[in-house]
């Protein structure tokens, strides 16, 4: 295990968060010989502790600290204090994710150029291209053990997949498979193969699914260069008179306020907490929040265009048996404006157990229409629709100074309105998903509204020019050279793909950059 580092050791890199971004960055730096202190707000659980019970697991893992919401999105009405369904635990949301690992498409790094000037959308090209990220995607796929890459076979098809696949073929889709998943289809990297348990969202109890908790952080700790401090909630990043970050103030597991000095600070608390931390770190030198000279911190919050379609059939499906996300159709992921919107979407199978089905099928719904759908549960197949949503300046994380957390800090308010492009895409996706199930004999299809956000992106976005965003192509803030952002909040735009693989690829790339700059002593 890692030797603990002193609070006054100002040679360490402090990373806030231990998920896909922070957990990967910290491990990669430790492997390169860099000393890292990783501060994680949540507890540390072992995979044996995970629970195959949706609500019990939610209590164990979900981030349920107070947040508020506003805007016209339905989540604000149905789940006013749960804008996002993400994890507060060592490993972050890699504990909870379903494992879909898709690369962004080339045009998704150049949306302003490709989509043009779309009213209300704050589109911007990424300062990097697919070609620049490709070597890092390759590294990420290898370390995550992504199926259908590196010679790793795909996972076998479950019942839910087989209904989905049959429907996809019936309506003429060509690109349907059990996907590229960071779930072992055969033993690899000291982890066994998938036992088709289901409950991927509740933490994988067999270890077949990649997470920073089991696959990265222990490797980093073995080097002696990485110390993880669970139950450590960072309140503020501090800086000196020259504007360089000097460390962080956090509340430890015993409720004591501590100050950890740092040579470099990397923020990876997800797209809600990361901007909240920067805004809560305002000072006389940075009155609008740290790294916020552009005014873009917290803005351009993206959550992906989402929705689900469930199809009820005459005969049993048992969709919950096996991996939660068991297959994908990619035919609609392309950019083709003939459909009435820019960007594209993925169709991915999804299953929920009875408790979460009841909570999310039609939030607030009741009566026979609702319960007759629930009565068809065992005959139900499900898919999730996930596509690129438009960045909008007004979709943003702000500090709610009327509501404080237990440490007295203002909580995050999440404001979101759909862009007309998001709505057009969702309606198209609903109709295609319903057509798939209808084509194989669904007796009823249910277009289900978005759940609390699982993909949170864009609130500290990358930009070539400092005035357009918060960080540069390395995730380094434009304003503070030794302050980095290492999570999905860096995303300039969201792409149609599940974000984790891209977060991991960016983190590996960022580790190269940080280690190189440390050697050159530029930071």
């Amino acid at each position: 295990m890692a030797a603990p580092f002193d609070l006054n050791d100002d040679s360490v890199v402090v990373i806030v968060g231990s998920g896909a971004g922070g957990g990967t960055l910290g491990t990669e730096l430790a492997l390169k010989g860099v000393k890292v202190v990783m501060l994680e707000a949540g507890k540390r659980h072992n995979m044996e502790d995970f629970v195959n019970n949706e609500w019990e697991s939610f209590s164990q893992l979900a981030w349920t600290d107070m947040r508020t919401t506003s805007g016209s999105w339905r989540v604000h009405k149905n789940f006013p204090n749960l804008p996002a369904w993400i994890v507060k635990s060592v490993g972050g949301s890699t504990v909870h994710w379903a494992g879909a690992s898709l690369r962004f498409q080339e045009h998704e790094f150049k949306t302003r150029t490709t989509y043009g000037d779309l009213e209300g959308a704050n589109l911007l090209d990424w300062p990097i291209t697919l070609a620049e990220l490709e070597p890092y995607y390759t590294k990420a796929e290898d370390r995550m053990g992504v199926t259908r890459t590196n010679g790793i076979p795909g996972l076998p098809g479950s019942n839910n997949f087989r209904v989905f696949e049959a429907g996809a073929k019936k309506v003429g889709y060509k690109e349907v498979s059990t996907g590229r998943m960071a779930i072992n289809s055969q033993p690899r990297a000291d982890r066994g193969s998938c036992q088709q348990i289901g409950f991927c969202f509740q933490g994988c109890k067999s270890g077949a699914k990649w997470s920073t908790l089991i696959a990265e952080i222990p490797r980093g700790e073995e080097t002696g260069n990485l110390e993880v401090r669970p139950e450590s909630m960072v309140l503020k990043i501090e800086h000196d008179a020259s504007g360089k970050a000097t460390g962080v103030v956090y509340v430890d597991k015993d409720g004591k306020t501590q100050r950890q000095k740092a040579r470099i600070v990397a923020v990876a608390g997800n797209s809600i907490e990361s901007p909240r931390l920067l805004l809560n770190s305002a000072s006389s030198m940075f009155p609008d929040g740290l790294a916020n000279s552009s005014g873009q911190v917290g803005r351009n919050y993206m959550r992906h265009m989402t929705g689900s379609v469930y199809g009820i059939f005459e005969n049993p499906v048992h969709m919950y048996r096996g991996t939660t996300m068991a297959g994908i159709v990619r035919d609609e992921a392309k950019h083709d404006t003939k459909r009435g919107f820019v960007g594209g979407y993925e169709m991915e199978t999804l299953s929920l157990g009875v408790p979460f089905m009841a909570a999310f099928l039609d939030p607030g719904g009741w009566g026979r229409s609702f319960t007759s759908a629930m009565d068809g549960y065992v005959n139900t197949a499900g898919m999730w629709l996930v596509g690129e949503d438009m960045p909008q300046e007004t979709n943003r994380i702000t500090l709610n100074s009327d509501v404080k957390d237990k440490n007295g800090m203002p909580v995050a308010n999440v404001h979101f309105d759909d862009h007309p492009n998001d709505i057009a895409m969702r309606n198209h996706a609903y109709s295609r998903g319903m057509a798939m199930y209808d084509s194989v004999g669904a007796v009823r299809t249910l277009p289900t509204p978005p759940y609390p956000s699982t993909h949170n992106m864009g609130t500290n976005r990358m930009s070539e020019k400092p005035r357009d965003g918060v960080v540069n192509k390395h995730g380094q803030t434009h304003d503070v050279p030794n302050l980095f952002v290492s999570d999905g909040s860096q995303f300039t735009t969201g792409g149609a793909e599940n974000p984790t693989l891209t977060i991991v690829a960016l983190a590996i790339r960022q580790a190269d950059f940080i280690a190189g700059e440390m050697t050159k002593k530029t930071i």
Partner: protein
Amino acid sequence: MTTLIDRRGPSRRALLAGFGATGALMISGLAVINPREAWGLEVANLKPETMRTLIIMARDVYPHDRIADKYYALAMKPYETGAATDPALKSLVEDGVVTLDTLAKAKHGVAYADLGWEDQRTEILRQIEDGAFFQKVRGGLVVGLYNQEEVWPIFGYEGSSADKGGYIDRGFSDISWL
């Protein structure tokens, strides 16, 4: 109407109730009992009539003909226990049931629980569905009912699977009708 009911007498009413809204739910002293399902629920902190109405309301909100009253009663029990220490909850529930009965009597001349058709009761619920009482009951019920492991088999859901080795050898890909 009054005459009809008088002529039928209490036993006739109880019999009708047995086939109607109240199912087999009866009040006995300070308990709601269900002789058909052979259970009783002692009610100490709410009026027994209130508890019976809550259980009927629960079924009206999430009607599943294959789920026994017992599970609706279990889902509603937290209001009974909560009322002991939470006066605001107690009055929300008691007042909420008074409102249901007032609306039911105004339209049909009988209390909510004595309305014979689910549709009649649902119509009353639609009038109050945006209010705090209904939202509280529905919000608690969507977890309190569907999170009972005992009801999962009724939906064909098998619950925890890691302890059984997952579904790799237990039918994750056994569909035969496609």
